[in-house]
């Protein structure tokens, strides 16, 4: 700490250069912060949600419905605690551009087994009791300015009403929040009553899109999945049971190629930016060789010189890095607002840690060569400019 002033003066020596370098580093880390938020949003559901839940869907493809009769037979499987069911509705609000997931669910059991959906008890009761009731995520409600008590007309893209129209009138009875910030993507969804859906749709009565099975013991998930699949093997409606995590992962994998390429490209970008900054950093220290020689003449030890140069480079990277992360943190809400809530990404604590650690690491990598050079400096040569 005694030498902090010295390090600081080193950075202040060429203020324009330091400022520009800081800004370059900040740009790189702002990029990193945004990308990591995307990455976390992509992977969070897999890490956080549903290790004790199974998704049971048709073995042949996700668009094949399963008969309602599977419910009773699955309930008899030992280790199954509760079963909810759901169907993709695929509705749009006013305009096809207003896309968000709309899903018909069995209200009570669905809320029972999804404790990450936070909703007031009164609204929960209303959702269970209202035939045309619907609950929406807070982010979605904000996006369209919905309040409890509103009527929401949904246009069906898949399921026309029995009366032949494609409009479904829903009553908004509750607004829910996600328990963890990483799951905020959930708040873009709309759930409504399966009973109403099944009764009023034109075709497909008596089937569900998928079942969600909550098990007593997460360790037993694989065994129970196998038991369920075996129940319906060789029937005309074979099932595929997988943990919710695997189910979501399979979707992420299908978007796969694009996600992978985008991440790879951006990773390369980040690295290039940091390396370039490192070059500037190295240049700055090369310029100061005579100064370092003076320090040595004054009796600074090799090791002290090494640590001073390293500390300077790490300080620069951390300052720039944290600045970039803060910029990213500040711009995420702006991006969310500009995209109409479609890219509502939170910045996870791990991003801050990872970013800072990266900054420190890069600071060492970038600072080490000039630091070593400064350490090995021969005073006489350096002073005479050789």
């Amino acid at each position, binding site marked *: 700490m005694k030498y902090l002033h010295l390090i600081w003066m080193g950075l202040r020596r060429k203020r324009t250069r330091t400022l*520009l370098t800081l800004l370059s580093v900040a740009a790189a880390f702002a990029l990193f912060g*945004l990308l990591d938020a995307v990455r976390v949003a992509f992977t969070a559901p897999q890490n956080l949600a549903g290790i004790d839940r199974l998704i049971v869907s048709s073995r042949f493809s996700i668009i094949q419905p399963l008969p309602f009769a599977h419910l009773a037979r699955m309930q008899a499987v030992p280790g199954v605690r509760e079963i909810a069911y759901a169907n993709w509705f*695929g509705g749009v609000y006013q305009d096809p551009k207003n896309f968000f997931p709309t899903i018909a669910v069995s209200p009570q059991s669905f809320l029972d087994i999804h404790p990450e959906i936070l909703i007031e008890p009164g609204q929960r009761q209303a959702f269970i009791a209202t035939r045309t009731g619907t609950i929406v995520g807070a982010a979605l409600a904000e996006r369209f300015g919905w309040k409890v008590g509103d009527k929401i007309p949904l246009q*069906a893209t*898949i399921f026309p009403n029995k009366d032949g129209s494609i409009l479904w009138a829903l009553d908004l009875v509750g607004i829910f929040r996600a328990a963890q910030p990483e799951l905020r993507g959930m708040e873009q969804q709309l759930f409504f009553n399966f009973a109403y859906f099944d009764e009023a749709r034109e075709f497909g009565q008596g089937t569900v899109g998928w079942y969600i099975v909550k098990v007593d013991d997460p360790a037993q998930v694989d065994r129970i999945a196998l038991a369920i699949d075996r129940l319906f093997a060789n029937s005309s409606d074979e099932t595929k049971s997988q943990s919710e995590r695997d189910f979501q992962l399979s979707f992420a*994998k299908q978007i796969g190629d694009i996600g992978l390429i985008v991440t790879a490209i951006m990773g390369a*970008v980040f690295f*290039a930016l940091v390396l*370039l900054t490192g070059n500037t950093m190295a240049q700055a220290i090369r310029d100061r060789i005579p100064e370092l020689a003076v320090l040595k003449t004054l009796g600074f030890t090799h090791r002290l010189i090494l640590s001073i140069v390293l500390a300077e480079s790490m300080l620069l990277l951390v300052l720039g890095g944290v600045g970039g992360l803060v910029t990213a943190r500040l711009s995420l809400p702006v991006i969310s607002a500009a995209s109409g809530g479609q890219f509502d990404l939170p910045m996870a604590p791990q991003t801050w840690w990872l970013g800072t650690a990266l900054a420190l690491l890069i600071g060492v990598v970038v600072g080490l060569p000039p630091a070593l050079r400064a350490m090995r400096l021969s005073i006489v040569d350096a002073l005479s400019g050789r």
Partner: protein
Amino acid sequence: MRAFIRFLQGAGITLAALAAVVLWMSAPLLLLAASPALPAWLLFSRAGRQALAVAASGLSTVPQRLGGTSVIVVGIGGVVAVLVALLSMAAGFEATLSESGSDATAIVLRAGADAEVSSGLERADVTLVAQAPGVARDARNAPLASPEVVVIANIPLRSSGTDANVVVRGVGPGVWGVRPEVRMLAGRRFEPGLRELVVGQGALRQFSGIEPGAEIRLNNQSWRIVGTFASGDAHDSELWGDAETVATAYRRNGFQSVTLRLDGAQGLERLRAALDGDPRLKVDVETTREYYNKQSEQLTRMIRVLGTGVAVIMAIGAVFGAINTMYAAIAARAREIATLRALGFTGVPVVVAVLLESMLLALAGGALGAAIAYALFHGYTVSTLGGNFSQVVFQFQVTPALLLQGMQWALGLGFIGGLLPALRAARIPITAALRES
């Protein structure tokens, strides 16, 4: 007062520079049209020749400061590479889907359905649609229409071995007339009534176990692959079989869409009028071009916004790097520049020379970045989840337009990066710089 004048000067220069960059990014042709003036000025005017001389002496020192110049070249190269790569992905996806459609064919879906997978038509509807006016007919006066069933099958990807969704399209016997661009590459067409499939070349590349001769299971029934086809569009990602047989296998009693060939330019209007006027039908009709454009819109827009956003952030970082480098280059040559100015060189040649240097380096970086993007990604095949909940196979397309756009960015960034250092060079106090060691 002097300070105020300097402030006005600075503000004026900043505004002019901003205007130049905006003009360059939005209407490059305008500036390109004026560009012959620059070489003429450089070659034939006194100040121009001076600028050339200063720039040449600056560039001759580039080999001695590779570290610094690589900051500009690599930094701007990176920006251009990322921009071009991401935009080429969007371009490829859009091209694949927009080539799938044409103005000569139309698709009929249930009213309100936004994709085939969410649509449904009854048998009677299909007959009505096919017989409607506006539908082209073949030599035997049968309508050129193909009622189609779209189902989704799970087939493992070659790359990861995990299951992904593939469209299995049941097509009517008229399909070869409706989509004449489809040709068989190997094997033969499927036989109607048999459980046979032909597989698109894109699907064949991305998925395993669907080579001709192979058997796959669809809804617990065994199907044989008898051939491969090429269509040059989104259908390349699909497996085709007989519509009736596919519908039976999936216990469907109807179709999802009807694709038909329109009868002349007025065909669509006549067809739309007839379908809208028929109270028995609740359907939407649009040309396949409109339909597939809608399907590609969202993803391409997202990639474009993403690509440009990333490029802008990178560009900010790269410009700061470039400014740093050019400042360093000028600091190293301060004495030389001061000497020139003492000899009577005015400020303009010095400014132009520094700008020339930074823009040349940026251009080199841009060319490098574009070349990398082209070498790595042009024709690179990927697949992703598309409109029907299923995989769409497409290729990156690094088009000449994108390469030019990359160069446009590179030059713009080189200009911004060089401007401040150039002004500094022109203002170096001569006496102080000459004394400096």
